[in-house]
């Protein structure tokens, strides 16, 4: 009675099998070997349904080379290279404050030895009075939350004029070179008005709803 190999399910005939069946068995085995040779061309919708660990494919629609790591179709690359985003999003989050207050934040699992680039852009407008200096700050902390006492990564001043008429924009980035134990950290984007005037961040401008972007990405080691 035949048995089967564990990965490709190749049929191994027993010594007592009739040789007249041998051709059929061999042909079926060759087809299975042929099917997985190199990087078989599939699409993201037609990946092999029962892959074995280490199996490789090429997706024609996404142009991805991938391999089955035992639980998912993983990607090829070099360990030192830039990796996928931790966060890249845009929305209409707004804030009106005088004291330093968190504007956006994101928790994720940071890996020891990796560098994380934090990009941000927003629109800032005076809500009361005429001019003010708004300070944008990036802080980070271990764990699931970040506060105004957390480690400061970045700080810069933006001069804002003309209450309710014209605002200023900010667009900048900084880096966290993470050398701690691999685990959860939180990065926060804060605003503070050092002139103690009420300032709006990411508000509407004359009824036009404006947005802000906050991005964190692993950009190498």
């Amino acid at each position, binding site marked *: 009675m035949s048995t089967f190999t564990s990965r490709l399910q190749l049929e191994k005939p027993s010594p007592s099998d009739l040789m007249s069946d041998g051709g059929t068995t061999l042909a079926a085995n060759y087809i299975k070997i042929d099917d997985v040779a190199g990087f078989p061309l599939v699409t993201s919708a037609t990946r092999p349904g029962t892959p074995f660990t*280490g199996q490789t494919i090429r997706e024609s629609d996404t142009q991805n080379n991938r391999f089955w790591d035992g639980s998912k179709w993983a990607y*090829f690359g070099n360990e030192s290279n830039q*990796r996928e985003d931790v966060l890249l999003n845009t929305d209409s989050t707004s804030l009106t404050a005088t004291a330093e207050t968190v504007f956006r934040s994101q928790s994720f699992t940071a890996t020891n030895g990796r560098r994380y680039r934090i990009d941000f852009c927003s629109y800032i407008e005076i809500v009361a009075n005429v001019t003010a200096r708004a300070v944008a700050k990036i802080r980070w902390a271990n764990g699931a939350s970040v506060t105004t006492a957390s480690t400061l990564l970045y700080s810069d001043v933006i001069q804002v004029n003309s209450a309710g008429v014209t605002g200023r924009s900010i667009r900048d980035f900084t880096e966290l070179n993470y050398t701690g134990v691999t685990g959860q950290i939180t990065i926060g984007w804060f605003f503070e008005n050092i002139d103690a005037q009420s300032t709006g961040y990411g508000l509407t401008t004359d009824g036009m709803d404006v947005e802000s972007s906050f991005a964190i990405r692993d950009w190498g080691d």
Partner: protein
Amino acid sequence: MTTTTRLALYEPTDTEVVNVVTAIDEQLDIIDDAAVATECTSSTRPITNLYAGRLAYETDTRLLIRYNGTVWQNMTGSFKRPRGKIGFTSTTTSSSAIAENAESGVLLSLTWTALAGRKYAVYFGGSVAVVAGNDASAAYKIRKANGATVTNTSTLVFTFGADADDNSTGLSTRHDGFCEHSPNAGEITIGLFLARPATGDAKTVQSASYQYLAIEDVE
């Protein structure tokens, strides 16, 4: 008896009466083990039938490794890699002046073939100058359309506050921003526009100085 050069598969001679177990079954086991990338751990890497180019996948480190003829080398990580620049364009030509409740453009645009499941970052910037009146509210807008053309009625992707402040040097104010976009697969065009909200005033502004639009595959 001869064997193949890489996997050392048993090659019977034409006249040999073969043993099914040794000539077929054991060879199939070798093929099965080596197929594409051998499944192993970092402590059980293949030590027989090694050849330059042989692949193995370490389940404990989640690394795909390749034997270079001497040692095993890492090939992969389990990460979706950014692919970098898609396009970049810039100009120093000023846009036409726009009044309240109007939109100028397309100022700059880029067309490319988006891939399924990819995420793109859109970077843009320019100076917004006062043409008539004083402080004027305005915004840069990013719009998208399928195909090769984008207009000021195309789908809005992002709106970024970009007011013109007449207290600024040269009566213009610099604004740079970015946003993300995950389009459907196929040809797509992203465009940069400048708009003024419906304020009812007589102020006009224009996009001036160095203006740019860049698109990067980030995930």
